[in-house]
């Protein structure tokens, strides 16, 4: 073997050893980061299931809580129904408004759209208790009483920025070529959005909406002085309405009583399962909304 060939092979070995070491170190770091991220997640899930599952029974979903929260028995029917009603109404308000805002921002462009985006970002960063105060003075003070409607408006304000941001991103991603296609076919702008852009972005918009719903469903602060909470079952959105986070909050505050503590844990578990269900549903819908060849 010639000396130059030896030198080349040495160089090759040295380089590859150093690089392999770096490679391995980074892999270890990546795994460590994964563990750091996953451990709390698994721990919370395990804690919730372990602590909450013993409260779960048919009665838990079909009856309302006892008047005295230290008493055992009863369920959370009023809170589950209240949460679904308020979140549903909030979504009905926030989705059209959010998509309309995103369409507006995309269509107008320029400085106006910039300020719309800025305001929406600020809104997204607003502490939720501030949203509560705002809706309190807007709805509760005006109507003179707490109500499920006020709670829904507060949740709609929470959902709005999430929906706008998701829709805006997706509509901006809509291919410029598709946009030109609709123009060249003499399609009017509202028609292009309704029939081409929004359907194209639909799977992403649905994901955004479900993210917004998941976020709103767990909000407590905006409901404290809007929906207020209610120990009784009601479908009347003009009355104070109970919600699951409010029920968790009240019961967890009194966790010295085992019954209250268990009720809080059970409700927390149900809440997490509902959020998870919304997420899975969103993924499923999003996959179905995509054209066949992109699935």
């Amino acid at each position, binding site marked *: 073997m010639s000396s130059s060939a030896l030198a080349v092979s040495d160089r090759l070995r040295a380089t590859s050893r150093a690089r392999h070491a770096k490679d391995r170190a980074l892999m270890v770091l990546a795994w460590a980061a994964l563990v750091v991220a996953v451990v709390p997640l698994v721990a919370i899930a395990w804690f919730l299931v372990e602590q909450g599952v013993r409260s779960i029974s048919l009665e838990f979903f079909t009856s309302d809580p006892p008047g005295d929260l230290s008493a055992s028995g009863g369920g959370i029917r009023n809170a589950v129904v209240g949460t679904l009603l308020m979140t549903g109404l909030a979504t009905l308000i926030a989705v059209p408004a959010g998509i309309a805002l995103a369409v507006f921002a995309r269509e107008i462009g320029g400085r106006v759209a910039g300020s719309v985006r800025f305001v929406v970002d600020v809104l997204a960063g607003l502490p939720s208790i501030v949203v509560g105060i705002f809706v309190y003075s807007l709805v509760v003070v005006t109507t003179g009483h707490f109500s499920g409607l006020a709670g829904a408006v507060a949740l709609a304000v929470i959902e709005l920025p999430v929906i706008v941001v998701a829709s805006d991103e997706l509509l901006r991603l809509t291919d410029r070529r598709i946009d030109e296609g*609709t123009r060249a*076919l003499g399609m009017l702008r509202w028609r292009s959005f309704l029939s081409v852009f929004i359907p194209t972005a*639909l799977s992403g918009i649905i994901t955004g909406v479900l993210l917004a719903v998941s976020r709103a469903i767990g909000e407590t602060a905006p409901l404290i002085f809007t929906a207020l909470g209610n120990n009784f079952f009601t479908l009347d959105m003009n009355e104070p309405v109970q919600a699951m986070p409010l029920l968790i909050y009240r019961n967890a505050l009194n966790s010295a009583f085992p019954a209250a503590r268990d009720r809080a844990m059970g409700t927390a578990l149900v809440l997490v399962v509902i959020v998870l269900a919304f997420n899975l549903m969103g993924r499923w819908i999003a996959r179905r909304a995509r054209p066949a060849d992109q699935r």
Partner: protein
Amino acid sequence: MTTTPIRLQPPPVEPAPVVSVSAASHNAKMLEPAELSVELSGVNAFYGSRRVVRDISLPVRSNAITAIIGPSGCGKSTLLRCINRMHELTPGAHVEGRIEYHGIDLYAPDIDPVAVRRTIGMVFQQPNPFPTMSIHDNVAAPARFNGLIAGKAAEHDLVERCLRQAALWDEVKDKLKAGGTSLSGGQQQRLCIARALALEPDVLLMDEPCSALDPIATLQVENLMVELKRDYTIIIVTHNMQQASRVSDQTAFLTMGDDRAGYLVEMADTVEIFTNPRQQLTEDYVSGRFG
């Protein structure tokens, strides 16, 4: 929907002109006004204050294929987009000069740009079928939205007629419900042509329609263009000189001036441009010595 279709005045009925290629006579280039479909005079196009197209006058014959050739960046596409008023959609862009369609000034204040685009169809470089729509709906929807057709039967007839015109029917007739983007590139481009035809335009603008296609698909689209010129006036922008010489009847050669704006070097019957150009620049370009 109650939208009444806004249409420009229908073009005057006239017999398809016999395209006589008399290369010897320069007078052959002086076209009779009656033969013209679109006529550009002194057109300038701007992005902001920057002029990208300078003083172009172009007579476009009816029922013929007019090719616009020239090096990259010489304003070919911009010029094409002036004709159906797409250029002005770019923020800050505007057009000066006069563009007439059968004698009607397309930039007159009472002309609706949306109606112009319905009458003067356009096919783009990249096929752009609507991704969430089926093959059927890609053709039918724009016509439906424009109020040109109503009812399932009428839609079906229209879809079949346009897909046949675009030489795509036999390939897709059994899968009309499949997504428009599930087709191959060449098929997608013919679908886009069918979609444009569904609005019953009179002029078809094609902006490098074959540059994203393979040679076989290119040939299919070229054959299609020759078929279509019986019923339509076609203006095609192309980088491909062989394509221009194969399909077009008249050719306009543009190039970029010192001011970086595109201008018209020469326009004549295609045969003449490729065999006997009057300008040295044209000669150099078509023989591949420049550009």
